């Protein structure tokens, strides 16, 4: 049994770990942003005269002061570091106040006067799609940020074959990431002319691009370093990178170190959320239980800026029919601009929305057919060698849907408990229900983006090892996983390996640590680097000691007959004495993926993971209160590098997923977020949760060098539909809108 291992546990449990706001520098100034607070207006002028004279204020910065580019975006450049002339979102930042202290900056914010001319806003994505709707970004030419589709088989033939057609619409919530640490950034211009930035962000390389572009610098002149981050969940990409760019802008213009630390209120106001979706399905099924067609239209509210909406909605497109075989598919997915607070990457990345719908829809279909929901799933689910709706053949890895489903249903004793469900029995004062959901998920970025990563193993003359990868530690323990992989590959104890504080100036761009790609990509690169390093050392041993190396184990270099040739340290000393660097640079490029935008066909992801979760719960008919009694999950992770950390991902994902189904919803009014802090935007607390069971399923993946896949997102994407299915069996009613709010009898009649 491997034990829990974290390279950063000691620092974190003693309070010594330094997050961005915990750093300060001599002569450091503080800056704070002025938010628009209205969602659509023309910005005629900003009067800073009074604010500039407030005590402690050094400078007030607006869009005019930006030396480089104003607008950014990983896909479409529409997101301004400081809004200019036009306000598109209440989260737009119009000015930055730089002062001696946070308090003074805060006081001055209130004295900035804006001259605005209202212009009508668009808050309903369906209205934004109408032909005469005003354009949010006229230069984009349309309010459709992006469109994806799938055309497989013949939908008319599918309709003819269907014995029953089910039509149902679903909607999902706008969700706050609610990472516990609000955004923060600290920037200073070093004497060598490099702008150095630390920040609470999960994509050091896009942060570097944003900083460099804002200042008009080359990438070599910006160095972004990584410090511990208090949670990200996909949420510390665009907004967080811009906070860093603004800190750098202030530092550049003021010639002194500048820190920007957001209050929770600022963070909620400005940061992007999870996309709310409206999803309408038509599904045809045959008497024998087979799915004959799936037709679906999804509209995702992207808000005022593109962010990664095209990628998020692309995943929804690829996975539009859930983990099932469907011969005829017609899918249209729109990412739409509105004046709402914008939406972007969020753990799950377009799959939680689809799963919320499809995992209820299959149960509705099964019931209409008079079929058991387990049998219906088993009959239609993707199996070894199945072809997905995008025409990808699943034969390069173990397709373990059946396995994960069986494990969960057995563990929770589904078939027995299924009979105990209340279905809204009016004679009971507590209703019991059990439900589950299953999913498949494409790993890493897929055809969404360039997918590669690198790792450096740099062995020091004393045999200790420095490891660096292009993966960012978001708090999930990815550095620890990389250390464990390197330790195993080199036959060394973890204590000999140090993960070097990564810097954008030292390791090549490894893309963003989202899409659960940390372990698979960084782990792949680490494995490759270790392979190279082993062959460098083996060659040195062969050339200078005349012995053939077979393997590296427990700090020894062994031959094929298990004889020790020399110790690791001796081998390293040998390398240095013979002028050979025991240094390796490993690259892992994701295997080729493909996508045809027109047909929606292609090998969308190079590998997939499979999961199942089940929930037991109780509903109080009088109050509508839902209490979760039990949660069980099984996920195929390929290989569990650090089992306790993997379990932590299970529990955390299920908890976030349960909140998604039950309570989480960011309220907006005319596009602006109305919850100001965590008392109004609530997330689940320890007393809201039951004991959870995590079942790790391991089918090593041949296409992953470390054999591991990912676990961050799968754990979140099926909890909410499992809850909805359990609520159905408790109440006898379907809840297709998130979050679930139990309708009481009186409301039903009224």
């Amino acid at each position: 049994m491997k034990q829990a291992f974290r390279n950063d546990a000691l620092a974190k449990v003693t309070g010594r770990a330094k997050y961005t706001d915990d750093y300060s520098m001599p002569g450091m100034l503080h800056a704070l942003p002025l938010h628009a607070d209205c969602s659509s207006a023309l910005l005629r002028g900003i009067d800073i005269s009074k604010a500039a004279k407030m005590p402690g204020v050094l400078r007030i910065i607006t869009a005019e002061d930006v030396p480089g580019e104003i607008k950014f975006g990983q896909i479409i450049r529409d997101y301004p570091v400081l809004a200019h002339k036009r306000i598109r979102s209440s989260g737009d930042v119009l000015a930055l106040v730089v002062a001696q202290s946070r308090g003074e900056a805060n006081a001055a914010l209130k004295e900035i006067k804006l001259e605005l001319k209202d212009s009508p806003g668009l808050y309903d994505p369906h209205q934004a799609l109408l032909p005469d709707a005003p354009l949010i970004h006229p230069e984009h030419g349309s309010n459709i940020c992006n469109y994806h589709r799938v055309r497989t088989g013949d939908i008319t033939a599918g309709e003819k074959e269907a014995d029953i057609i089910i039509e149902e619409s679903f909607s999902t919530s706008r969700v706050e990431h609610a990472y516990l640490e609000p955004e923060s950034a600290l920037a200073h211009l070093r004497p060598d002319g490099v702008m150095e930035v630390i920040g609470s962000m999960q994509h050091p390389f896009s942060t570097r691009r944003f900083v460099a572009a804002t200042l008009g610098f080359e990438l070599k002149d910006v160095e972004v370093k990584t410090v511990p981050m208090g949670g990200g969940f996909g949420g510390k990409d665009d907004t967080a990178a811009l906070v860093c760019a603004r800190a750098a802008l202030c530092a550049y213009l003021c010639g002194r170190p500048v820190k920007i630390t957001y209050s929770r209120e600022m963070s909620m106001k400005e940061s992007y959320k999870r996309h709310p979706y409206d999803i309408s399905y038509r599904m045809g099924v045959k008497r024998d239980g087979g799915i004959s067609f799936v037709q679906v239209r999804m509209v995702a509210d992207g808000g005022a800026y593109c962010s990664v909406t095209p990628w998020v909605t692309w995943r929804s497109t690829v996975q539009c029919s859930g983990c099932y075989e469907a011969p005829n598919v017609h899918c249209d997915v729109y990412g739409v601009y509105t004046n709402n607070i914008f939406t972007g990457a969020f753990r799950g990345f377009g799959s939680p929305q689809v799963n919320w719908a499809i995992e209820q829809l299959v149960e509705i279909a099964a019931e209409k057919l008079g079929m058991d929901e387990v049998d219906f799933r088993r009959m239609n689910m993707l199996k070894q060698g199945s072809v997905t709706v995008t025409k990808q053949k699943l034969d390069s890895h173990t397709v373990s849907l059946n396995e994960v489903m069986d494990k969960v249903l057995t563990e929770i004793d589904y078939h027995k408990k299924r009979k105990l469900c209340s279905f809204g029995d009016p004679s009971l004062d507590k209703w019991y229900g059990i439900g589950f959901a299953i999913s498949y998920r494409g790993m890493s970025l897929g055809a969404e983006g360039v997918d590669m990563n690198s790792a450096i193993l740099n062995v020091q003359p004393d045999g200790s090892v420095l490891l660096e990868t292009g993966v960012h530690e978001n708090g999930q323990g990815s550095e620890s996983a990389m250390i464990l992989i390197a330790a195993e590959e080199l036959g060394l104890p973890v204590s000999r390996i140090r993960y070097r504080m990564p810097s954008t100036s030292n390791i090549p761009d490894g893309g963003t640590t989202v899409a659960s790609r940390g372990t698979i990509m960084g782990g792949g690169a680490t494995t490759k680097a270790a392979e190279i390093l082993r062959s460098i050392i083996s060659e040195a041993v062969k050339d200078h000691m005349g012995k053939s190396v077979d393997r590296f184990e427990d700090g020894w270099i062994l031959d094929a007959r298990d004889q020790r040739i020399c110790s690791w340290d001796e081998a390293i000393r040998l390398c240095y004495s013979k002028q050979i660097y025991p240094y390796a640079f490993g690259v892992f490029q994701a295997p080729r993926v493909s996508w045809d935008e027109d047909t929606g066909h292609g090998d969308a992801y190079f590998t997939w993971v499979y999961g199942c979760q089940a929930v037991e719960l109780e509903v109080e008919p009088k109050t509508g209160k839902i209490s979760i009694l039990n949660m069980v999950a099984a996920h195929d992770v390929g290989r569990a590098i650090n089992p306790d950390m993997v379990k932590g991902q299970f529990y955390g994902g299920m908890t976030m997923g349960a909140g998604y189904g039950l309570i989480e919803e960011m309220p907006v009014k005319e596009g602006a977020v109305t919850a100001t802090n965590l008392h109004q935007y609530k997330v689940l607390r320890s007393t809201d949760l039951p004991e959870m069971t995590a079942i790790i399923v391991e089918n090593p993946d041949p296409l992953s060098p470390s054999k591991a896949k990912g676990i961050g997102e799968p754990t979140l994407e099926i909890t909410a539909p499992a809850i909805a299915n359990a609520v159905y069996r408790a109440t006898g009613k379907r809840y297709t809108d998130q979050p679930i709010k139990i309708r009481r009898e009186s409301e039903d009649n009224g």
Partner: protein
Amino acid sequence: MKITVNGVCYKLAEDMGARLLSDWLREDLGLIGTKIGCGIGVCGSCTVLVDKLAKRSCLLKLSDVQDHEITTIEGIANADGTLHPLQEAFVDCGAIQCGFCTPGMVISALALLMKNPRPTRDEIRKALKGNLCRCTGYQQIIDAVELAATKLYSTKQSSK
């Protein structure tokens, strides 16, 4: 005005009384283990011990704690620098992810164990209700508190 923090007594000018305890700890004393997640008393990441009670330092003014003893996360390790059994248990149980909630969690758990050395899992859940964690789903944190309680209790029994 006198305030003791982690065993060190600080003498302060009276006009400091309106300053927030959390700001003073972080900015003046450099005790950055106390984290600010919300600033309004709902997330628990700023929790410190005031005498033996867990309190949210973002809601306290220095005048509220004069003549009291404050313990922050930096003050709970053993005198020889080794970890407190509760800290050890957090490490061993995999109770730490991003770690931003960890100091507050440890302090709240410590306050619980001082009051109730053998809590049930439900009692642990209740005691941690005021501490938000967005990463762990709380389960391994509860495991950690349970493990620490067992360890502390058995050491106490054997030293009797």
